[in-house]
């Protein structure tokens, strides 16, 4: 009897492991950070691309109801395709869009904006990429929607889609 129970529990144990492994097969093995909502954005200061003046993030964000911080770079191909959507957004709404120019060369960045238009009210430089990391970003492009208390309402990893845009418009109205 004792023996039977022992073997039964061994079988059950392995069945459990089997189930876990089986369910595990469905999970993606690629990690994406969870979308953390309602988190405070870390403050930073940086130089503006055109005016060379120093700005603090707090100052920019608190003077507007909503702010969209968009991390971009001239060497990043998805940013190029995303740019039209951003242009559109800046024309349609009076949303304060801040560019964070990630690991870019100044000339290339300016050329990029000359060519494709400038949707940003300010363009801050993140030359070594550390500002983006301190915001919890993943790569380029990535966007954060903030309210005037520096709280992250939405975070978009990868290029913005038109669905994202309609969501943003809904929130700011």
């Amino acid at each position, binding site marked *: 009897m004792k*023996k039977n129970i022992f*073997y039964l529990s*061994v*079988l059950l144990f*392995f069945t459990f492991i*089997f189930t*876990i*492994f*089986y*369910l*595990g*097969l*469905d*999970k993606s*093995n*690629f*990690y994406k950070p969870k979308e953390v909502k309602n988190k405070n954005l870390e403050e930073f200061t940086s130089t503006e691309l055109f005016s060379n003046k120093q700005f603090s993030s707090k100052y920019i964000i608190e003077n507007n109801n909503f702010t969209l911080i968009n991390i971009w770079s001239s*060497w990043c191909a998805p940013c190029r395709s995303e740019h039209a959507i951003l242009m559109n957004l800046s024309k349609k709404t009076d949303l304060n869009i801040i560019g964070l120019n990630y690991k870019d060369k100044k000339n290339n960045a300016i050329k990029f904006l000359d060519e494709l238009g400038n949707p940003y009210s300010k363009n801050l430089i993140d030359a070594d990429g550390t500002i983006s990391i301190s915001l919890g970003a993943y790569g380029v492009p990535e966007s954060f929607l903030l309210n005037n208390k520096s709280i992250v309402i939405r975070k978009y990893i990868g290029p913005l889609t038109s669905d994202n845009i309609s969501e943003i418009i809904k929130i700011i109205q």
Partner: protein
Amino acid sequence: MISSHIGYYSLLLGFIISVSLLFYSIFYLKKNSQKINQNIFSLLFLQFFIVVISFISLVYSFIISDFSNETVYNNSHSTKPLFYKITGTWGNHEGSLLLWLLVLTLFIFLFIIFSKKQPVKYRLLSIFFQQIIISGFFLFLLLTSNPFNFLFPIPNEGLGLNPILQDPALAIHPPILYLGYVGSSIIFSASLASLIQNNINKLWATHIKKWIQIAWFFLTIGILLGSIWAYYELGWGGFWFWDPVENVSLMPWLCLTALFHTVIVLEKRNLLKSWTLILSIATFTFSMIGTFLVRSGILNSVHTFANDPERGVFILIFLFSLIFLSIILFFIYQVNESNTEKKFFLISKETSILINNWFMMYFLSVVLIGTTYPIFLEVITNEKISIGPPFFNKLMVPFLIFFLIFMALGSNLKWIKDNYKNIKYSKIILFFVCILISFYIVKKTSSELLFTSVLGAAALYLLFVNIREFLNKKNNTSQTISHFGFGLFVLSILLNSLFSDEFSANMKLGQELVYKKEQIKFSKIKSIDKENYKSIIVNFEIKDDEKNITSLYPEIRIYNQPNILTSEADIKTTIFLDKFIVINLIKGEEIFNVRYQTKPFMIWIWISVCLISIGGMLGVLKKN
């Protein structure tokens, strides 16, 4: 084109032979014949031969760059050097599974030839169980990973082999590793057979021991080759990263090492029967678990195979069928442990082997849970965590101290019962001397002084004890060499991790930097076009405080197909110190990121693993 046909139909034929062998072995088992029928020999040989043909036809497709074959298209390129065209055969999922089959069929064939003295029924049963595994792998190959899929229209050019796999050490790493990793299947089949036959005794132990030692030897060398490759090719200067792919080769190794010792107890004392069987079965089960974890893509690893959930499901079901089969067989056929009057005495060789097993199982459980826990956590709570070196070090290293001491004290005890008095005072004095030496060496390292000196002392102690044994010559040479090797291994790793130093900076041509007592000069740069890559070679001159100049030539290779950049480190090895330098391009500039490392005792890590495995091999060669 033709070769793919030949390869594919060979596989089909091989599967049919496998199924017929399953029936044949049952048929002859029922007939109670005194001899193994010649038909079975012929079929086994034919099966092996056919897998060889299938394998050769795949190699041939790689050599002639036959891109109508999907595997060749995905993993080869016509400009690749011939050597890497050949080795590319097993550098991918499908080809490496064909290699699996080759080893599986080779081992059962050899096993039947070399087991003539064993009972007929036992041999037939071994064939039966091995054919279950073989037919499972045939099905796996044919259904989910056929290496001979056709492509139409035929592409002009292949996608190429990942450049980091184009390397001599990695070319021979899989075949050698598999001889151990897959070779353990024969131990699995033979133990299930002996469980049913109920012939688990001293004779069986003597016979299976050779197979355990052979599998263990190749597994050890295979892991060593993988580490050496990681050391110089991945360009990070490390040799073990606790990556899932590495862990899954370590698990069967730990299990096999425990088995290696336990089977000696069975051989000498006719004890620990069921434990020996459990370990035999577990070893191959861990090989299968490893295959599942790596090939299904369930874990994230540096070395990824193209994965596909279908494959994962197949392997998973197959793996657990083998596990359940073993459990049920254990339930039906009870193992008769020999009379309980035989005692284990505290001071005896068998107890010290039990202690070895105790630690081995502990290390195994750490590796196992460290590798699979993220899967459990994700399925149950939907959270992801990473488990890396700090976890393994925290749980393993403290136990290593006791393990080393037990190893030094226990391995030369006598069987049945030894005396306290045989543990001489000189050994205790020796231990304290070791602590002093070790303390002296590590005193410059500020952190965890006590802990590291005790660990160092334990390794040194094992080293000295074995040197003494070796000089006495009374003892088992193969054991002494392996154990000495293990002491040296731990000591080299410890000193290596304590005294490794590194420096990294961005440099350009002509620049000179001083780091500590050394001067590093970026003296030359040139670029060369090779067969399938363009190479940028940089020359660094390193001048030490005695004005000796070492020239190092790290390289950046720009492969054409696939278009990948690799950094080739340059390493100057001397007996005490490796100088390791690797460069990386910084985006679009003439500046290179230079990482220069000095790694003491590196070569001793490799030598010590060689010693460990040579000791094991001497055991195989020794006549009983």
